[in-house]
């Protein structure tokens, strides 16, 4: 029995290791190849023969990469904070407060789930163009916070608040708290897991946004990271691969480090989202 058991274990570990390759190798290869001399990009070696960091300097020389990094980061943070606020308030009101017309209004908001923002990209572009807001970050912030991408977050928050025991709120009301006070001091602190899940997927969504930036933004100092990554080309328009890889490494590694440190909250937060949403 125990010999069978250990044989099975070896098989399982072997299978897991093989399956890991396509998940781990690209990241490994991205990081190490960004430090290889250009001639070695397509060599089979797992490590550079000599380590060079000149590609990293080139990244900052070719584009305002620091500015672009800041653009992506602040947009993602503002969108995440905004979505959390809008979704928590709307989710709470739809779940816990009774007011006339509530169900009809909820249906209006829910239509956002049927209409991904890609569908409305043409009129939204026209709208922002006529307001003179193309090549600004406004479209990348207000559409996600108030538009269709926020609706899933509202839905998740509502599901969470629906499950909250009513006794808690009644007790708070006895203590003389108003509705806003109950929301702020009682409901919101309890909603931390749901808010965490909303924060994670909102941040990732904004961080990965690609269609909207290339539609709205036109000058390199306004670009976000995903868009900037594809712009490292030589004077003939050919991609400068090792420079791209250096930029990609700088884009990916900080998030990965945060993930590894906080991975339990990350994964369980997202599992929570999926089950509820």
């Amino acid at each position, binding site marked *: 029995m125990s010999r069978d058991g250990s044989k099975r274990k070896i098989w399982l570990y072997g299978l897991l290791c093989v399956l890991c390759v396509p998940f781990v190798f690209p990241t490994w*290869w991205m990081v190490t190849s960004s430090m290889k001399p250009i001639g070695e990009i397509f060599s089979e070696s797992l490590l550079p023969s000599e380590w060079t960091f000149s590609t990293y300097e080139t990244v900052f020389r070719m584009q305002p990469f620091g500015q672009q990094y800041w653009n992506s980061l602040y947009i993602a943070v503002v969108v995440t904070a905004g979505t959390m606020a809008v979704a928590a308030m709307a989710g709470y009101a739809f779940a816990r407060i009774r007011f006339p017309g509530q169900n009809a209004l909820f249906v209006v908001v829910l*239509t956002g789930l049927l209409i991904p923002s*890609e569908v*409305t990209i043409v*009129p939204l572009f026209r709208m922002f163009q006529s307001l003179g807001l193309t090549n600004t970050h406004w479209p990348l912030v207000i559409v996600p916070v*108030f538009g269709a991408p926020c609706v899933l977050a509202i839905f998740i928050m509502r599901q969470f608040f629906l499950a909250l025991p009513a006794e808690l709120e009644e007790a708070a009301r006895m203590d003389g708290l108003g509705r806003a006070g109950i929301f702020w001091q009682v409901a919101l602190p309890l909603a931390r897991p749901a808010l965490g899940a909303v924060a994670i997927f909102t941040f990732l969504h904004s961080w*990965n946004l690609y269609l909207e930036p290339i539609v709205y933004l036109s000058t390199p100092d306004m670009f976000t990271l*995903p868009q900037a990554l594809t712009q490292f080309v030589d004077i003939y328009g050919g991609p400068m691969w090792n420079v791209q890889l250096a930029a*990609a490494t700088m884009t990916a590694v900080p998030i990965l480090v945060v993930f590894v440190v906080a991975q339990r909250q990350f994964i369980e937060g997202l599992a929570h989202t999926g089950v509820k949403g």
Partner: protein
Amino acid sequence: MTFWTYRRRDNLVGYLFVAPALLGSLVFVLVPLAMVGWYSLNEWNVLGGTFEFIGAENYRRLLEDEKLRESLVATAWFAAGLVVLNLSLALLLAVLLNQKLRGTTLFRTLFFSPVLVSLVAWTLVWQLMLQPEGSVNGLLGFFGVDGPNWLRGDTTAMVSVVVVQVVKNVGLNMVLFLAALQGVPAPLYEAAKIDGAGAWTLFTRITIPLISPTILLTSIITIVGSLQVFAQIAVLTQGGPGTSTTVLIYYLYQQAFQFHHFGYGATISVLLFVIVAALTLLQWRMRRKWVLHES
């Protein structure tokens, strides 16, 4: 009694709390949707500066557009390939990680990690690895296989975009499946084992039926998600070779923002909306039917 009773104040707070979301839905979702419908009835070339009401002309063009037909075929292949590969791999990984093994947390982290890698960074890396002289063919060469030029062949380009997308995101579905597997009560397995059921029977007769709500949920999320895949196509293949990977959203982008046909682009948007809405409504219906399973 004052005018501001608790009831009235409650109503006011309710309206105030939903106001941002509601205004947002009107301004950024419903009004633009109506505008998409209106644009689709017009010939509108931004470069030429023409805007002219043409009724259902764009829709007739839609029906006759050979490229659109090819694009729908590509979209269907992409969605089907993605769902089949994503769900079966996610389930396999979840089952493996659900074994009583030491170190599964490490493997879970590794399988999940591509989810956190910035999408375009991930795609660029794969673009390099899929070059004729890249790592993928290097690995195949190690086994004596002469690999193709992945991104330049019709079929291999489609396979490539599917695989790149699956490896990137399968971790999400894996986590959902893992949560579902851990919710299957162990006594069920014990009882079936006593009745002499083998591992495969346990899997098909107990595991699969009990996690079926999760399978349904993830498959719809994955299909609807596949309709929004843009960056990977734009970076890896630009829809090519030919139209073999021109999924609907990429075709929409080409028509509207590369060829500046806003009217026709809006017509394609209407089609995209109909497909997404139909799939989402189907999901809601099916979930209601399955809700008993969802404890």
